[in-house]
């Protein structure tokens, strides 16, 4: 019984809140069922199903706070977890920045559940792997990949009357296809909330085509190039940049959004006019829970970058109080405005440029300018007169997403892309960007 319904979790929350003797109590009940299949060298290497649940109790006595969790729901266990949290709260030092539990919130439901995804079984997973493996065997290619799906529920409540319950589903598929001689490699990623929007055959074909086209890559000189960046190439760069939107960091002078003299760049036009990035828990493509799991503040639609201007910063409860503004929920998704143009159209409109399938091993080099380094991988091609001419060797880049979003020439149609190292669900368009800075060549295929 991993997935509990609202009635069941409400009863658990009420029991916990009644048991608590602390000044305030916050309770969270969650559970998930996650299936996966992993394959490599054209064979399945592992497959599994993991189920997990937890009830987490956070209590406070004055400014002392304690947290404990347990994975059983009987009365005795609930009493135990409440007492453990209270014991820890008594041991913990006072936190001068402690903020009380939020007042009752209105959570407008978001469409985070798909019955079709929840019904995914081992056969479905095996079939997703089989499409790639069989097609690769036929084409003398080698497939490696991972398919994972999850069904989960999340319930939150506190002693001020907050209550929210919702179910979520999701799936991710990644596949790397390599030629047998190791001279070509292609990759694809697909993320979906609803399994009916996932086509394993289509996905595998993309990776296969990229692998076949990428053989015998030519070396071209590093330098600044016009690039067409597929969504997987920019999503992590943009995700990295968002950590600089914290209001406290900005006000304290520790963000790229801090300005000389102590002011922030809020309201400044820091990006190209075409750049519009917002968060919206109810977005039909990438819906997320309508609350922030840390603060329990209700999420809202927020324009983070509007027509190239920095439009909003994230305010924690503590910093909001200090600054006399409204605290904000941490975004769960990022949506970037695009057009109806396909990646192929962006290529067709390009005289000379480079197509980048994905970027890899991205790390922050300098937080002052959000300078990031990383590499291209699994499908980098030279474009001439609107056509892909030949594969090229991978590059290392040293580039800031701020600069990248200033140099946009053309934007395509957003696609759903799950985060890798950043935590957001995203809808990001392919982009044509001028002067993207490649600093060295990589021999990696």
């Amino acid at each position, binding site marked *: 019984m991993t997935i509990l319904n609202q009635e069941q979790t409400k009863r658990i929350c009420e029991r916990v809140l009644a048991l608590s003797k602390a000044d305030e109590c916050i309770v969270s009940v969650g559970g998930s069922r996650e299936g996966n299949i992993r394959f490599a060298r054209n064979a399945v290497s592992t497959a599994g199903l993991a189920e997990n649940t937890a009830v987490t109790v956070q209590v406070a006595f004055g400014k002392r706070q304690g947290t404990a969790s347990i994975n059983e729901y009987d009365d005795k266990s609930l009493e135990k977890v409440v007492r453990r949290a209270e014991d820890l709260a008594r041991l913990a*030092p006072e936190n001068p920045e402690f903020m009380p539990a939020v007042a009752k919130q209105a959570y407008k439901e978001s469409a985070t559940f798909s019955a079709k995804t929840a019904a995914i079984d081992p056969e479905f997973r095996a079939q997703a792997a089989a499409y790639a493996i069989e097609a690769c065997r036929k084409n003398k290619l080698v497939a490696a990949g*991972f398919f994972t799906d999850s069904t*989960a529920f999340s319930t939150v409540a506190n002693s001020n009357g907050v209550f929210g319950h919702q179910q979520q589903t999701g799936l991710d598929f990644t596949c790397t296809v390599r030629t047998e001689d190791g001279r070509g490699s292609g990759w694809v990623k697909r993320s979906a909330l609803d399994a009916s929007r996932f086509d394993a055959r289509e996905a595998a074909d993309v990776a296969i085509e990229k692998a076949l086209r990428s053989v015998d890559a030519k070396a071209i000189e590093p330098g600044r190039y016009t690039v067409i960046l597929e969504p997987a190439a920019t999503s992590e760069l943009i995700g990295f940049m968002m950590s600089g939107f914290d209001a406290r960091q900005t006000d304290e002078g520790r963000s790229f959004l801090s300005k000389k003299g102590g002011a922030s760049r809020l309201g400044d036009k820091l990006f190209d006019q075409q750049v519009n990035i917002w968060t919206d828990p109810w977005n039909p493509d990438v819906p997320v829970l309508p609350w922030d799991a840390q603060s329990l503040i209700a999420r809202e639609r927020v324009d983070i970058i509007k027509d190239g201007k920095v439009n909003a910063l994230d305010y924690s409860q503590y910093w909001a109080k200090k600054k006399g503004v409204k605290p904000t929920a941490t975004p769960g998704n990022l949506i970037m405005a695009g057009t109806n143009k396909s990646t192929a159209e962006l290529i067709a409109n390009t005289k000379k440029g480079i197509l980048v399938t994905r970027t890899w091993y991205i790390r922050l080099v300098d937080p002052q300018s959000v300078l990031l380094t990383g590499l291209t991988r699994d499908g980098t091609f030279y474009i001439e007169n609107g056509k892909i001419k030949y594969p090229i060797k991978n590059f*290392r880049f040293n580039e800031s997403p701020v600069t990248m979003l200033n140099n946009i020439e053309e934007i395509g149609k957003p696609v759903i892309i799950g985060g890798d190292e950043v935590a957001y669900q995203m809808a990001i368009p392919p982009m044509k960007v001028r002067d993207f800075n490649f600093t060295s060549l990589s021999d990696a295929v």
Partner: protein
Amino acid sequence: MERRTFLNVGSLAFGSLLVPVFGRAIAAEELLAPMAVTAKKALADVAMNAATKAGASYCDVRIGRYLNQYIITRDLNVENVTNTESAGVGVRVICNGAYGFAATSDMSADGIAGAARQAVAIAKANARLQSEPVQLAPVKGAGEVAWATPVVKDWRAVPIKDKAELLIAANKAGMDAGANFMQSMLFQVNQQKYFASTDGSYIDQDLQRLWAPLSATAVDKASGKFRSRSGLSTPVGMGYEYLDARAQDKIKAAGGVATLYTKSYDIVEDARAAGRDAKRKLTAKSVAPGKYDLMLSPEHLFLTIHESVGHPTELDRVLGYEANYAGTSFATLDKWQSKNFKYGSPLVNIVADKTTPGSLGNVGYDDEGVKCKRWDIIKDGILVNYQATRDQAHIIGEKESHGCSYADSWSNVQFQRMPNVSLQAGKKALSPDEMVKDIKKGIYIVGDGSFSIDQQRYNFQFGGQLFYEINNGKIGQMLEDVAYQSNTQDFWNACTAICDERDWRMGGSFFDGKGQPPQISIVSHGSSTARFNGINVINTARKIG
């Protein structure tokens, strides 16, 4: 590679937890009571009997209880104190030549037997897609044995108040020395691991690890510039005694530019230095890009070793099992088979070793019940071996496993993870100060910074914490905006000097990520200060807006 932060580890995917934890949070007083070995043996036997009855030809059982505590401080405040626990059983079987794995937190006999039967069912299903049967290198059953990290002071017995006060004292020292903001943390880990297998092993291990990272940030509001300096400690496989600083464990960096630490760490002293250094960085000279002779301190070089030698010599990557995630490796089997692949200059000797005292990878037995040992990876510059588990040993002609199996939780399947991989000290007497004398145009780098390498481990870029120019045999002023780029083979072949064993010490990582679903591992890398000639240095300063 560190793909996820420590705080996210083990948090449930549904994201509803109120605090980031890596297990179930528990009260402090419960941390010290271990589960009886007899009870663990009985449970392991239940699983093995159920598995063999269901048709398994092999079964191993890992009963884990993972206890952790983390304390996070910012400036003069304690932001979070959390104790966590995670306990359960993982059962791995071979049936019909294929692996199966299942895990459960239900530690009743029925629950464990059920997991064993489920593992067998999964193995049978996987066998249909198997191209060749799993072949395990033989392991002689260890019988009933125990191993524990040698610990002088158990972190579980140190009051939270004392630990919090130490971190706050460090933050205060950093702020007094010039930092505008300080953060310090204490991560403490206890893994109670019981391994049993149908080979006849019943191995009980009690492991302890600790890490105390810090960061100092200085801000110049007038110019809008900010710079940070991280701590120069290393995560260790030791007890709380690591934080009882001893004078004999302190050494001076070349030219006295920093105080460095070996077997114990003075966090307050380092925080003070970090505050001072962060402020100095605000006015340091921006580096002129070009070719330099780099002098790399072990606090920095460990990460370069990790990325450019540790990962490429993992046999599962070489074979293609990580192709979809962390990537493959340039160090292919044909290069190893040639017996003359020049990975580095003849000075470069790199060993794998899970027996180094105080290291993160130091255990008695790996997660397949293989007794840990030491072996050569690169000898006199030549690639001579990889890192292998039981099912890989035959591929490289080995008769026994290297003992490189690890799982980050009872609930995850064990797989190949790197042991401690270390550069051996130079054979000729040479100190860091003597090394400087011979460098005309160089940069001395201390501490690890940003790091990135391609998916076959050729092209890399590293930053650092402290950079000093070297001019005509003398250490000069502090530099900033420094990163170096190279190709792994070019870099290691450019190694022209390594300080002797007096300078040898370890760095390490708590969060080395790999696998799908991803798992983290812990690993140390030792070295002495080493010199690399003619490496390309770039200037990372940028202007935006």
